[in-house]
Structures are given as structure tokens and as C-alpha cells.
């Protein structure tokens, strides 16, 4: 059963102060809400990934929650943004596949340069984060396939991708 909004609002305020028990309860309730929200909007095989992406967004953007307001509209805005972003990615992927068919004979040079740049950046990451990003974000494996390949649990793969990308972003911004 999903807790009422007043309870969630209280839990979110405590979570911002670093209360881990409250945060665990909050994420559990948020997960239930997100499953219901996405179930009507995406294919069943995409549901799990989208819920987990949204929970990661909740984690990364917790500071953007205003404890003086209700929690549910904030979570709904996060879910809607992730859903729109998901649609955009699906659209781009379909477009890239079409584009790849058109340019099958083009030079691979940009891809090679990008690969070299990435490998330089990867040197700053722990091996587990490198592997998780490489398998899922570059090779295109699913979370479960990457988990089976590396022996890391699926949740650890997600956490490693999240932390690795955060670190890469910081490295790129620092130049």
C-alpha cells in the first residue's frame, strides 16, 4: 500500500537531512508509485529500467525538493521528465539506426577518435565503473546481461554506472 502524501512529504524532509531509514521507506513508496505510473505508458520490458532510472533521478535531485510542498507533485514531475527523455532516446535510437544504414560506407574515424578520448577519461575511473559503463552504455548490453558478464549484481551495475558517469561529467567539466 502506498503511504499518504503527508507521510511521504514528512519522509522526504527527513531524507534531505540524511535520515537513511526515512529515505528507504520513501524510495520504497516512490517505487510503487512509479511502477503504477509507467505501467500504462511503456512496454513491460522497459518498465524496470525506467523505474530504476527515475529512482536514480530522485536520488541525484533530492535537493530540488521543497520540503514546504507536497512530495507527490515533485515525484510526478521527475517521472514525467524521465518518461519524455525515454521517448526522446527511443526516437533518437530509431533515427540513428536509419542513419547508420544510409552511411554504412562512411569513415569510422570520428568513432575511433571518440573511443580514444573515452579511454583516456576511463583511466580515472575504478575498474568496476569502467566495465559497467562500457558494457551497458557503449556496447549496448542490458543491465541483466552486464550483470551476468561481470558477476556484479544488477543494482551494483546501476550504481556503478551512476557514479561513473557522474565522475566522467565532473572530469569533462573540469576540462
Amino acid at each position, binding site marked *: 500500500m502506498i503511504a499518504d502524501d503527508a507521510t511521504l512529504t514528512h519522509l522526504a524532509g527527513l531524507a534531505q537531512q*540524511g535520515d537513511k531509514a526515512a529515505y528507504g521507506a520513501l524510495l520504497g513508496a516512490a517505487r510503487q508509485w512509479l511502477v503504477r505510473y509507467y505501467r500504462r505508458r511503456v512496454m513491460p520490458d522497459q518498465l524496470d529500467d525506467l523505474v530504476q532510472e527515475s529512482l*536514480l533521478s530522485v536520488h541525484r*535531485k533530492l*535537493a*530540488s525538493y521543497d520540503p514546504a510542498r507536497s512530495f507527490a507533485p515533485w515525484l510526478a*514531475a521527475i517521472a514525467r*521528465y524521465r518518461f519524455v527523455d525515454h521517448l526522446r532516446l527511443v526516437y533518437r535510437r530509431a533515427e540513428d539506426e536509419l542513419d547508420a544504414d544510409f552511411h554504412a560506407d562512411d569513415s569510422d574515424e570520428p568513432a575511433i577518435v571518440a573511443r580514444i578520448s573515452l579511454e583516456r577519461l576511463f583511466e580515472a575511473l575504478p575498474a568496476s565503473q569502467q566495465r559497467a559503463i562500457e558494457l551497458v552504455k557503449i556496447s549496448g548490453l542490458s543491465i541483466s546481461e552486464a550483470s551476468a558478464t561481470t558477476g556484479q549484481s544488477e*543494482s551494483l551495475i546501476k550504481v556503478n554506472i551512476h557514479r561513473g558517469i557522474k565522475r566522467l561529467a565532473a572530469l569533462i567539466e573540469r576540462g
Partner: protein
Amino acid sequence: MPDNTENLIAGLVADLKPVAPLRKRAGMALAMIALGAGVTGMVLLVGLRADLRSGEPDPIALISGDLFLVLALASFWAVADMARPYVGVRREGWGWTALMAGVLPAAALVLLATTWLHGEPTQLALNGRDCLLFGLGWGMLSAAAQVWWLRRGAPSRPERAGLLVGVGAGAAGIFAVSLYCPHSDLVHIGVWHGLTVVLAGLFGRIAVPRLIAW
């Protein structure tokens, strides 16, 4: 599926650290500091208009400058709130303010049309391009501050946020320029100063969303 998500939640809970909620006033203060820096920089670089220095401000220049200032503040306020996503929140105050400031270019166009109909020379000042370029340049300070603020938050409507960043930055930049700009005729102000805000809004709408994606 449930076990994986449970594990993810456990990982996130273990990773939790206390966070300070983003305060709207902090975002507003940041944009105001950038606006103040732009105004100070402009005044130190080129000084004030003669009528302001003499303590006898021109009414048209004063009113139009204040209109752009109010538009900048209304846009800053909306952007400061956009860093905190909420479904169902309406932020329309800036739109009414933009409409109010839109009176200036509308009046300028009417004046241009009537002078053209009467066969008189138009009053478009030649150095309007300087106002445009300096306005966009000084506006970059406000834009940078607002983008930094939005990147800390989670703007759920990046296109709207980008437009508002541009409008606010353009209005802030042209307010700074209006303290120096020697032209106080309505046509110059409506066309060139108004165009600065419009162009800045377009730039913001195009460039900012990719900078604030999360």
C-alpha cells in the same frame, strides 16, 4: 525485477548524504548579483548617461529602463522556481510582464509606420547595433548565473526554462545598457532594446535546454 530494484534502493540509501534544499530566494539572489555585476561593469566601463549624471533623468528612458528591469526580475523569479520541479504549478507572471514590456516595441512600430506614411525620415538611430551587442554581452552574466542555478536543480520543462533564461538575461543586459545609451526616443528603445530581449529569448530557447538536461 523487485529484487533488483530493492537492491538499487539499498545502494541509494547507503549513498545518502544530507542535502540543503534549493531555496527560490537563493536562485533569485544569484541572478540579482549577476545583474548587479553587469550594471556595475557597464557603468565602470562607459559611465552613466548625461541626464542621469546631471540628476535630471529623461522620462522615456527612465520608464523603458524600468520596464526592462521588471521583466528581468519577473523572469529571474520564474527561473529560480523552475529548478524545483512540480506538476501543476503555473508560472505565468513573467508572461504578463513581457506583455507589458512589449508595449515599447509595439509603440515603436506604430511610430515608424506613421512617419513612413507621412513621408518623413525614420528616427531609427544608427548605433542601435551597439545597444544590441552590448545588451546581449552583458546579459551573458545573468544567463550564466541562471544556467548554473538550473543545473543544480531539476528543471522539468527545459525549453520553457531556456526561453525564460534568455528573456531575463536580455532584459537585464539591456537595462544595464540603458543606463549609458544616449538615445531616449521611443523608436530606438522599442526597436533595438526590444530586439535585444527577443533575440536573447530565442538564443536561450535554442541553446540552454541542452545545458540543463539531467
